[in-house]
């Protein structure tokens, strides 16, 4: 089965799912960062231009900092998110899912020199399109990856109904599907709700509206409500 998730199992048996972010969102995050930095640079250069050569030097220093230090500082101190990544809901983490630290961050940002070849990020683009976790060369060397940090869309609260025990024992993923159904039923049309509920007639012994109600009642029971 095809997915963009990189699954990591910790020694405690907890499985972490890192949802790798691809070239398109990353490119947009980079664009946002670029625009922000340009704005800061130009705004700072207007007063600095009044100071002649000294001001020029300061502007150069600022440019250097924005070019090299900005990403590292943001990634280490702002939870692995530059401002552009924050806007797009992305985050840099190490390949094992832990927060990015100084060394990997410095390495991946230094290797931008390679990824930016030949000046328009051609190498980085090719790398992100080819790599299964959409890493550019800097990410591969530093052992980091960019993931989607936003929570996946969730359904609403399960409507409260008197809980009804399941007539049969279900496996965990089947139980999860039942609860998911109850959570997301509100987003579906009534016909589709009935269609789905009718699939489980062998379980509920009901059809249509009664089946929907019973499935929601089962979900209430699975959630431990009274």
């Amino acid at each position: 089965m095809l997915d963009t998730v990189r699954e990591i199992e910790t020694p405690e048996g907890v499985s972490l799912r890192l949802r790798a972010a691809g070239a398109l969102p990353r490119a947009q995050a980079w664009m946002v960062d670029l625009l922000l930095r340009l704005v800061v640079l130009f705004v700072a250069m207007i007063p600095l231009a009044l100071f002649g050569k000294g001001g020029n030097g300061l502007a150069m220093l600022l440019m250097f900092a924005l070019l090299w230090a900005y990403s590292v500082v943001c990634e280490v101190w702002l939870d692995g998110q530059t401002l552009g990544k924050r806007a797009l809901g992305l985050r840099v983490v190490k390949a094992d899912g832990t927060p990015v630290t100084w060394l990997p961050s410095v390495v991946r940002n230094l290797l931008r020199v390679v990824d930016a070849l030949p000046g328009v990020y051609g190498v980085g683009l090719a790398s992100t399109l080819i790599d299964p976790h959409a890493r550019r060369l800097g990410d591969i060397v530093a052992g980091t990856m960019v993931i989607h940090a936003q929570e996946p869309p969730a359904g609403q609260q399960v409507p409260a109904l008197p809980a009804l025990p399941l007539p049969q024992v279900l496996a965990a993923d089947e139980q999860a599907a039942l609860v998911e159904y109850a959570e997301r039923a509100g987003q579906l049309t009534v016909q589709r709700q009935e269609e789905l509920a009718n699939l489980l007639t062998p379980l509920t012994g009901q059809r249509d509206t009664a089946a929907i109600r019973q499935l929601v009642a089962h979900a209430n029971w699975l959630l431990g409500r009274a």
Partner: protein
Amino acid sequence: MELERISVVLRPRAPREALDLGAALLRANATAVWSAWFAFTLPVFVLCNALGLLLGWPWLGWVLVWWLKPLFDRLPLYVLSRAVFDRAPGWRETLRGQRRWSWRSTLAGLSWRRIDSNRALRLPLELLEGASRQQRAARWKVLRRRITGETSLLTYGCLQFELVLFLSFWLFALLLIPHEWRPESLAGFFRDDVRVAATPWILAGATVAYLAMSAIEPLYVACGFALYLNRRTQLEAWDIDLAFRRLRARLQGLGKLLGVLLLCAGALPLSARAATATVDTPKPATSNLDQVFGAPAGVGPRFAEAAAEVYRDPRFGGERTVRRWTFKYEPQPSARAQPLAFPLLARVLAAVFKGLLWLGLLGAVGALAWFAWRWRGRRRPAADETAPLPLHDMSNGEAPSPLPADLAGATRALWQARQQRAALALLYRGSVERTAQLLQLPPAVGATEADWLRQAAAINDAERAQRVVAIVRAWQFAAYAGRYPDDAAIERLLSGWPAQTGVSA
């Protein structure tokens, strides 16, 4: 459409994440997509450019190939839609399959809808669903509702990517050609070289643009298709549909194999606990302890029912594979157990060895008892030794005795009697006591050598202080390192104040 055969993981994704699913989809079916793509677009590209050359407008090929993008988009979409629900078709099959898809939407895309930022999302709706016009309009309204931002981002991003690849080629070429061949200035290059040989340069540009488009356009279509899949998953709960179908198959006892798969996947301590918890409705609290502990807990019909419920859990019972080593051939019983040659002798020998073993046991027990007795005997005086040592005892177990009046004489006597350690100990004890007297210090029981070295610094006579230091050092070397001074050094220590009180120095 048979949803069971889908080959991507369906789950609610944010639209932006769905874009990445498109990239993964394309990566997984790259061969099929690009073989079909080039099989169709390469001839078209050649034809367009030939037409441009014939008409004398070399730029026409470039523009035409760009304009025909909506036509080319059909190929990746065909491959990907088949790959997701079935298997990736070959390029011949893909080209043949185009005939079955309607051309109306493609014509619209090539004419009045050519500049449409939602093309990637519109394609699957129009080509895969094939609904009537009114229905399509209504569906389009629903489908695009929450993802217009992402479709625009997709179009804009892919445009950017194409530009990046196009520029990358030229910039790399600029980086890699030798310095002598480089033009003096970019403006001059365009003014002179390009204008002189315009047609070859335009054809080269068209080729590079075509290659960049070939790399990115399938991605554009794939991402649009993934957006579409995600939106339909959201609207129609495809993932739940799939899960319910699997459950239904299991319940109906049809999907035995599926059951085994679920069995492997299902980890559900939760369900077992929840089930027993509700079967045993909470009883009123019993105050009588006998009742609580005496009653055979959980034996009864209700318990049996709960247990049966637990055993119905797919994790119990069923099939599972166990791997273990077994002998390839049955091991033969060893041929050792032969009848003995001399039974009488053997029996006598056995009796003798048995007796020896018993003797050995007796010996061991006796030795243990003897050791125990000896240990008891040893332990007694040792117990006395653990009594707290007198604090002033600096010689070997010698009771603290008042200092002899003639400290030097006593020390010298001990030294000459070869009791060097005792002599130095006496000298040390005497000298520190006299130092304390001299400095009028309170009797310091716990004072260490280091303390006395510090105190010696307080003596206002340098020679005396030096001698006290020398005595303490000599004692330290003797006590801790077993290094004793020679006779001359002892005599130097014994001359003068701490050892000889009568002498002034």
